[in-house]
């Protein structure tokens, strides 16, 4: 069963991965909504595609949708999403499997086949 968890910010995201460390954890890092609107057009395109692929998974899976803050926060090169050695994010959207060297960036997240490939078992 897929459990979807929506979190905001780095600390909440890391806490949630820790709480679910015994499951397969996937995280989509995406722009936070400001007044209900996303500031990142690529994220808007990717989100429904990733969600559709995720909903097809049946095994013990946790999917974290993590907002990385507003544009100004994200663009700051020293924000923890960019600097933390476990993440080292370069762009949003980024979809990754937690603890594995598999990730998709930007418009790759909107490619259904690539997303399905990332969600495959190792």
């Amino acid at each position: 069963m897929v459990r979807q968890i929506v979190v905001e910010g780095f600390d909440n995201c890391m806490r949630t991965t820790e709480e679910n460390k015994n499951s397969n954890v996937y995280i989509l890092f995406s722009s936070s909504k400001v007044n209900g609107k996303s500031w990142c057009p690529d994220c808007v395109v990717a989100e429904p595609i990733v969600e559709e692929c995720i909903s097809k998974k049946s095994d013990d899976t946790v999917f974290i949708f993590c907002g990385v803050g507003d544009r100004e926060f994200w663009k700051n090169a020293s924000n923890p999403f960019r600097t933390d050695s476990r993440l080292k994010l370069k762009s949003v959207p980024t979809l990754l499997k937690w603890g594995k060297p598999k990730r998709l960036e930007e418009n790759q997240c909107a490619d259904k086949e690539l997303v399905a490939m990332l969600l495959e078992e190792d």
Partner: protein
Amino acid sequence: MPPIDGSDGLKAMIEDLVNKNRVMIFSKSACPYCLKAKDLFKSINVEYHAVELDKLDNGPAIQDTLQAMTGQRTVPNTFINGKHLGGYDSTLKAKENKTLEVMLDGESYDYDLVVIGGGSGGLACAKEAVKHGVKVACLDFVKPSPQGTTWGLGGTCVNVGCIPKKLMHQASILGHSIEDAKSYGWELKDEKVKHNWETMKNAIQDHIGSLNWNYRVELRSKEVTYQNSYGEFIDKHKIKCTNKRGKVQEMTSRYFILAMGGRPRYPDIPGCKEYCITSDDLFSLPYAPGKTLCIGASYVSLECAGFLTSLGFDVTVMVRSILLRGFDQQMAEEIGKYMADHGTKFIRPCVPVKIERLEEGQPGRYRVTGKMQDGTEVVDEYNTIVVAVGRDPCTKGIGLDTVGVDVDPKTGFVLASDGEQTSCPNIYAIGDVLKGRPELTPVAIQAGRLLAKRLFTSATLKCDYVNVPTTVFTPLEYGAIGMPEEVAIDKFGQGDIEVYHSHFLPLEWTLPHREENVCYAKLICVKSLKEKVIGLHVLGPNAGEITQGFTIGIKLGATKADFDNAIGIHPTCAEIFTTMNITKNSGVDISVSGC
């Protein structure tokens, strides 16, 4: 567009012509492009049938019908085997990217190219081929090693070769650097610095995992079909693909490229396959190997022995006869001497006889019995035994005999022309499966790229297998381009060879007082060819970086005078090649001390 009066009859007539003639050209007698199109078919000895529309009363009506049928009004309007090709430009383009051949052939296949093997060569070839608009699939399947190790897409280099090897070599170099650091003023609190195998192994495997993933993303993005399947030829255009769940699928292709690479060979002695590991297993070994025996004197064996020794393990190398067969033997012996001086033990000349397990565990404990050349038996115990006595090409069990691809009956290497074509004309081979070619990643990549270009464009450039540079990443690195000294003497005669040589001391080694007279460089020149340099050999730190740059000079035919005329960069190791003035013949002492 509304039907033109009588066009149904004309359409039937056109279809009849198109179906009856392998090449059908609707033409006008005075049109220069029509003449060019006809000349093109004449130049490749292909017969065509032409209808000159300007000579027919209903010519304009035929032209109208052709436009309705093909969307093309202009002439020439060419059809091949019933399929519309287009005008002169389309015909020329089809000739250049080889699709004309395919159309003339009349056969249709699932793919234009199927590459068997997703290693460096196979991937490079597949990615190059799709650039030219053809349909490509790549099969990759890793049979687990006898110890059960398996890995992802990318082949030997990425998973169990160059990449993890160089990273472990780097781990060992860093250990030495930590020692050197004290001489440079770094005060290390903990005098005994320890190495953690698992941390290194995990970091390396993570990096490899990201490379495997990126290759898959790349293939998908470039629209190369990737199949994690084992391929077996059914006929020369058809292959059976079996995935790890046993699911079978068939694919047809116009061309195939064999790029399966090789795997480590096990000597046929009791206990070897059961208890020994190879380079296939070492780089992902979940536990520190402990006391280790490396069997063989290949570069793989010496590199593994080298970094394991530097990481603090008790390491022995069992050598049958010479070190680094095929490499310059003076350099090989120098490498062995340096390793022995730095703690690696050598048993030679000696061959293994049997291996017994004394204790299971991670690592376990094994007894190895060897026989010295004089018949003396040597017995010792080890925790890990790494076999590195050579590699065999993966050419068995894929149906090469079915399709008539000739292989060397003794070794299994594929025999191919200088354009990598095998004895089955639509099947080619690149990389480590080829007989008599250097088994090196960049060679396979180059051959793969150039082959794809030749197959699908008008390119003609073939891979140049001469003067391929390489480096052995032993603790003291050894870089080489061109001939070993003994090969040069054999080819040109002792009297025509001049060898310039010198020891050198890296500046960085002076403060920690590392040993003098171990780093060494030599240039092998042919006197009768104005001292053209036909061999460059260097033993020292970063030998790979030194050797790479000089490759261009050697390929361009540089002479000793050209080297003398080059200005050095000071202070570097590579600058030694610009100032070499002592010949081996002179017998002058080449030892150095300080700058």
